[in-house]
């Protein structure tokens, strides 16, 4: 294998690989990327067995072939070389890759290509085309509500594709974020419901183009943007029955200005306990009182004008969970729909754009 390419062309692809390859030292081959050269094209493949990335670029290929090399090292080497320069890559007989550019030379130990896991391919026969920018906006609205700790909960978001609509749902057991968007021309044979890994969503966020093509088989999801294809193992868990927990009849509705609400929460949360981050909201006619206390530090109170006519309700919430929604909602005012202090609250932007956004939040006993 022998090829040459301009630094910038390969650097972007190597950069993307950094999010994919395995960082823990469990299997050395997963820290490597597969470099394959053939007919004016070079393909890079990285995977941690859950999420994979294949990416192609044009290059001057003198000799075809493939080899695996440390994804981190090759990235660092390429990055360190001067901009705009041609970099030469060559495989030599004793399982080394030679990288040279100008007067710089590197020889990096490789692992045989036979050791690299097979990364599945897709035919993209289903012709499911999604608008990438809209998808990215939707991911922003569900990403934070995916459980942090894999040990606690499934680490992915549910994606539903149906006629003319796409929905994304995430939950960590205490809250749930739901978005849906009208997408003209979507017409799958039957409704598609798959759980997409958190890591895959993070990688999709990094891509840019106007559209993304989607396909899947029994075990894998495929997302193609231009020359890049993400392969994501389907998370086999059952997604909780989210439709059943979406409150339908929360009678008490209040409207609050988003910016001042989040600022007040941030202030009061300064004295909330670190672990549970609880703040107490007392909602009365046309005002919210916020309160937090930490026996080791002290207490905080704040007060906010809102539009509210219902009865007095007192509820505790995780302040971070409230802020997560407020930060990702793009509206001047948000609605808060309540029932009682043991039932889920619903939050949504007052005016919805072309992406519908609903946030369900369980209260906290403080």
């Amino acid at each position, binding site marked *: 294998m022998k090829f040459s390419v301009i630094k910038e062309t390969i650097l972007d692809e190597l950069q993307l690989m950094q999010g994919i390859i395995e960082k823990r030292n469990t299997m050395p081959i997963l820290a490597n990327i597969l470099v394959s050269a053939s007919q004016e094209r070079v393909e890079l493949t990285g995977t941690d067995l859950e999420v994979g990335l294949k990416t192609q670029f044009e290059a001057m290929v003198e000799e075809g072939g493939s080899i695996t090399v440390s994804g981190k090292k090759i990235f660092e080497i390429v990055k360190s070389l001067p901009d705009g320069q041609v970099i030469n890559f060559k495989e030599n007989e004793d399982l080394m890759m030679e990288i040279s550019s100008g007067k710089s030379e590197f020889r990096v130990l490789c692992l045989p290509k036979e050791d690299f896991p097979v990364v599945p391919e897709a035919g993209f026969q289903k012709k499911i085309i999604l608008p990438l920018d809209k998808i990215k906006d939707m991911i922003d609205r569900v990403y934070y509500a995916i459980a942090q700790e894999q040990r606690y909960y499934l680490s992915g978001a549910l994606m539903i594709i149906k006629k003319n609509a796409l929905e994304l749902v995430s939950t960590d057991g205490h809250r749930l974020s739901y978005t849906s968007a009208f997408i003209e021309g979507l017409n799958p044979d039957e409704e598609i419901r798959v759980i997409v890994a958190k890591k895959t969503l993070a990688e999709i966020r990094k891509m840019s183009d106007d559209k993304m093509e989607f396909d899947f088989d029994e075990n894998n999801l495929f997302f193609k943007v231009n020359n890049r294809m993400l392969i994501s193992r389907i998370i086999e868990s059952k997604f909780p029955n989210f439709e059943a927990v979406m409150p339908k009849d929360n009678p008490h509705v209040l409207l609050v200005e988003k910016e001042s609400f989040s600022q007040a929460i941030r202030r009061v949360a300064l004295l909330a306990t670190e672990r*549970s981050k609880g703040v107490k909201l007392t909602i009365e006619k046309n005002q919210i009182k916020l309160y937090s206390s930490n026996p080791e530090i002290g207490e905080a109170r704040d007060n906010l004008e809102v539009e509210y006519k219902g009865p007095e309700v007192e509820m505790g919430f995780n302040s971070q969970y409230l802020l997560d929604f407020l930060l990702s909602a793009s509206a001047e005012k948000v609605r808060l729909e309540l029932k009682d202090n043991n039932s889920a609250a619903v939050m949504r932007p007052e005016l919805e754009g072309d992406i519908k956004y609903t946030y369900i939040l369980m209260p906290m006993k*403080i």
Partner: protein
Amino acid sequence: MTMKRRHFGETAKPESEGLMRGRCVVHIDIDAFFAAVEELLNPALKGKPVIVGGLPHERGVAATCNYEARRYGIHAGMPLRQAYQLCPNGLFIRGNYQVYQAFSEKFFRILYEYTPDVEAASLDEAYLELTRCRPLYASFSEAARRVKGRVEKELGLKVSVGVGPNKILAKLATKRAKPAGFFEVEPGREEDFLRDLGIECLPGIGPKAQVILRMLNIHKIGDLWGMPRSALRSLFGLGGEEVYLQSRGIDSRPVFTRIVPKSVSRETTFLEDIWDRRLLLAHLAYLCDRLTLGLREEHLFAHVIEVKARYSDFKTEVRRCLLLTPLQEMTAIYRVAEDLFLKLFSTSRLSLRLVGVRASDLVRARPLSLFEPYSDREERLAVAVDRVREKYGFGSLLTVRERMLDAIYEFEPRRGFVLKTASLTR
């Protein structure tokens, strides 16, 4: 004077009017707590060496001992067998932790009558910050003497009391006051007080540091004043910084009224190794019951439950479980603990000598789950059980599983079972 004035310039110097202008911290410590309680309950023990923690042939360590026993060189934390060798005539008592706890509760109730700012250092030791209560008392030292008098009269136990402008000086004053005394570090006399105390008095100086310092011919706190801060730092790292400040009587730590504990745990070593699974589960249930009582009193919920088992060959195993929704109730915590214990125990054919349960990652609020329907059944049950026990005692309401312990332990309707005493020194 061995010490230069400027060293002391770093303290918050008490004003000339005396302590009334600055902080006043009182340190109070019950003398030989467990042993003193035993003497109180059985006056025949008075004047004889008493060691609480277990019988001489039993395993375990001395939880505490009285001053007579200390004369033989016995101290808390010493293996019982060794204590017996030092003092074969000593009176060894297993002790009753729940009785001590009751005394401790009464002790703290009295303290809270004098100031809300009480920090419990252990069952028998507390710091009181009187600073905020200045208008209530003619003088701080008079208030501290009144606390001492009240505790001694109402508990029938001797206490030592130290008074100072901060925690370290108050604690050192108590050390000076022991046994049964009262000592006040008077404003402006801090240097004189500290100068001749042995370096081992400082909590920051452990046995190793003592050896090093003695090699440098430093024996008294006053000798430390000559050492530059940088030298102490290079000798002991961050601990050196602490020693530098402590030796000058500088301590800005506040008296913490209520600290969220890092964990709450209950464990017991059996009188004899146990192999019977049902009996082991009975112990576990009882420990969970005691543990959850502690959690509810502190209004805490646990995200992590841990079960510990020590086998007859002293090998110790721990299993833990992370909970999405933190728990507080006995029924729920026992379910988790039993599950953990069975996983752990089924892997071994040895008998056990100890079992324990620990709740950690504690929070004061319980986030409700979106997918499990909300039910306050167990919460209401716990409240009802607490109410019965408040009136008729802890032992008045136990599960059938817990009552299996009847076969092994003494049962007191008010206090429950008398398990082996845990050591105060941990």
